[in-house]
């Protein structure tokens, strides 16, 4: 038994013609066409291109909705194990079409997809959404691109785990994967420094991220009538950590009532955080979560009310995505409880 593949190419690679034929609408052909031959050869019988969809680049760009509907219908009928588009090299509209149609197939038909193109192709902007094999900037690179795409496609069809981008040859997609290098880190560092000093090219192993921004909410108008809630990433929990929140890489957050609690006393509360010296927080947990002061301000009428529940997470080694998910969940609870302002403390 061999895997079934549907392949998408443009008018040029189907030998219909160049720019002058870019207007042709989608067409379904049986078997492999053009670059598909090279893919099929690499699979050596393990997978077969059952059909090839050809579409003019201008047609796709100008009639995207119709083209997409037609192509999705054909792909659905063919029930392939993978949908492959391109490679598009540095052809802009072709790359755009490959990336977009591949994304539709992946999201709407739930079929694995793969495409390939040059890193500066506009279609490569979608590298975080679909797997894109990095190719050279001209069709002369087909000899290298086809085996790379064929190998990765076969892994996907076979349900194998995909290795890191640098090993498999796809563009970095924001998903970090571990692997063992041939040289140790210090040697790689010295080598990178020598390149940097000599003005030679080097590739960072981790491109610096950029963080998004949120517009600030309006201020609390009347503090003396406001309900203020306390949250912390410092891991304050009741004694013996009843929810067993992990010291690092926490898999959950804590939600604890402080109704009637005047101050977080030693012994009754402690920290579950593994990233800092816990002695001080355990000695007096108000040092991390200032319940004592807020209760006093509540009595004095400086704030309307201290909300009777606090939320606690361990920031230490816990991924941003996980932290975000926890906070999203409890932020909604706070909103539903008509909390007017939040004090978040971090260690």
């Amino acid at each position, binding site marked *: 038994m061999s895997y079934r593949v549907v392949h998408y190419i443009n008018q040029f690679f189907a030998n219909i013609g160049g720019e002058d034929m870019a207007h042709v609408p989608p067409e379904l052909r049986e078997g492999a066409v053009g670059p598909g031959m090279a893919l099929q050869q690499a699979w050596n019988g393990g997978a077969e291109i059952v059909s090839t969809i050809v579409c003019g680049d201008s047609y796709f760009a100008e009639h995207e909705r119709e083209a997409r509907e037609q192509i999705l219908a054909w792909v659905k009928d063919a029930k392939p194990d993978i949908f492959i588009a391109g490679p598009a090299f540095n052809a802009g509209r072709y790359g755009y079409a490959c990336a977009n149609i591949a994304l539709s197939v992946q999201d709407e038909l739930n079929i694995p997809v793969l495409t390939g193109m040059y890193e500066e192709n506009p279609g490569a902007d979608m590298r975080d959404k679909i797997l894109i094999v990095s190719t050279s900037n001209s069709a002369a690179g087909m000899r290298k691109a086809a085996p790379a795409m064929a190998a990765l496609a076969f892994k996907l069809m076979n349900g194998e785990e995909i290795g890191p981008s640098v090993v498999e040859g796809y563009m970095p997609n924001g998903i970090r994967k571990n692997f063992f290098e041939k040289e140790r*880190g210090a040697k790689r560092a010295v080598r990178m420094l020598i390149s940097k*000093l000599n003005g030679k090219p080097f590739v960072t192993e981790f491109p610096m991220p950029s963080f998004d921004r949120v517009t600030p909410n309006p201020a609390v108008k009347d503090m003396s009538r406001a309900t203020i809630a306390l949250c912390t990433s410092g891991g304050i929990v009741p004694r013996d950590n009843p929810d067993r929140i992990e010291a690092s890489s926490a898999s959950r957050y804590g939600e604890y009532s402080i109704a009637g609690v005047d101050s977080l006393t030693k012994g009754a509360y402690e920290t579950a955080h593994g990233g800092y010296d816990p002695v001080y927080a355990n000695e007096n947990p108000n040092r991390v979560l200032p319940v004592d002061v807020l209760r006093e301000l509540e009595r004095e009428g400086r704030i309307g009310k201290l909300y009777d529940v606090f939320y606690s997470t361990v920031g230490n080694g816990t991924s941003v995505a996980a932290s975000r998910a926890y906070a999203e969940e409890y932020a909604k609870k706070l909103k539903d409880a008509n909390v007017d302002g939040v004090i978040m403390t971090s260690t």
Partner: protein
Amino acid sequence: MKLQLGFINIKDVCLSDKTMVENGILHVNSDEVISHIMQDEDVKACIKEAYFDIARPGEKVRITPVKDVIEPRVKVEGSGGQFPGVISKVDAVGSGRTHVLKGMAVVTVGPIVGFQEGIIDMWGTGAEYTEFSKLINLVLVCRPAEDIPPHEYERALRIAGLRTAAFLGECGREVQPDEVREYETFGIKQGMEKFPHLPRVGYVHMLQSQGLLHDTYVYGVDAKQTLSTIIMPTETMDGAIISGNCVSACDKNTTYHHQNNPVVAELFEEHGKSLNYVCNIITNENVYLADKVRSSDWTAKLCRLLDLDGVIISQEGFGNPDADLIMNTRKIEQQGIKTVIITDEYAGNDGRSQSLADSDPLADAVITGGNANQVITLPPMERVIGTLDYVDRIAGGHAGSLAEDGSIEAEIQVITGATNEMGFGYLSAR
């Protein structure tokens, strides 16, 4: 400053009635070594029981909770002794000759506080993630006396390990080394004259200094009480810096890492060829923002003063130290000095999350030790040295980490040295 290291290859370690090195085999008389450790009053007061065990590469053995790893050495010529300012008097090391028992290490094991230390597996998946699985490990297991405050017990265990290593290192004093290597850096003017056309390169060595289980000591001084300063590479190699930290174990530098600092070693490899290795700058990672600002300012000033063209910056730990790393990098780059940084990542179990807590576009040359949140399953072993009582609570473990058959599902965070940020290992991520 010139240092000769004489490497004595240790082929095996065995418990014996004598303590000596003979034909490449280290014989250890437990009673003798332990009574030597206990001569220190503080150690004696804090440690109720201590014993040795041996773990060899490929044996189905798990060592946990690991506190420190130390290479036994002895000062044969030149000033200073082992771990000056800590267990020998303060005297500059880094010149003369030191003999090294190569291929083995002393590993200290013992429970300290709520959350715990690392794991070293000698076999299986876990072994691939720690370079220490390749060494013959003489494990010193210590049990604390009752009601000892964690700070004091941590110190006792630290001293016990260093005393053991120094005592064993002494066995190599009269032994003819299998290999001798020489390391030398020069004064500023002398170096410029010697290598006029080579770029001047320094190493900014960040030291974890955040409190209990997160401290580092330089000639006995707690690094959090220091200002950024210059240290010669050979001093680092000769025991001037020791570790007091092990949580989370994957990216904490053990004393062994300091003795065998890979950045120092790789810079020496290129010294006089493609670069002129000038010196190391040590700087801390404190818990106060003012300290972070002051230390990184100071580091950048020193780099400028030394007229460096490039530096390698190694981090220790993660989270708030990411801010120290980024401040150092930004300020040094702003002096016109090129940087390469070594860090590790906390990108979540699925690798989709933000890897670092802080960032700056000037940090454009990064080496990564991998994603510490990667989950692996450590197979059951035939033997555990230490105790598995704490595995659920080690940073990187979670409730239910330890299965009934003795296997452990945990993040590689639990493995000593797995994502080391000196670039000691081969793990990386993309």
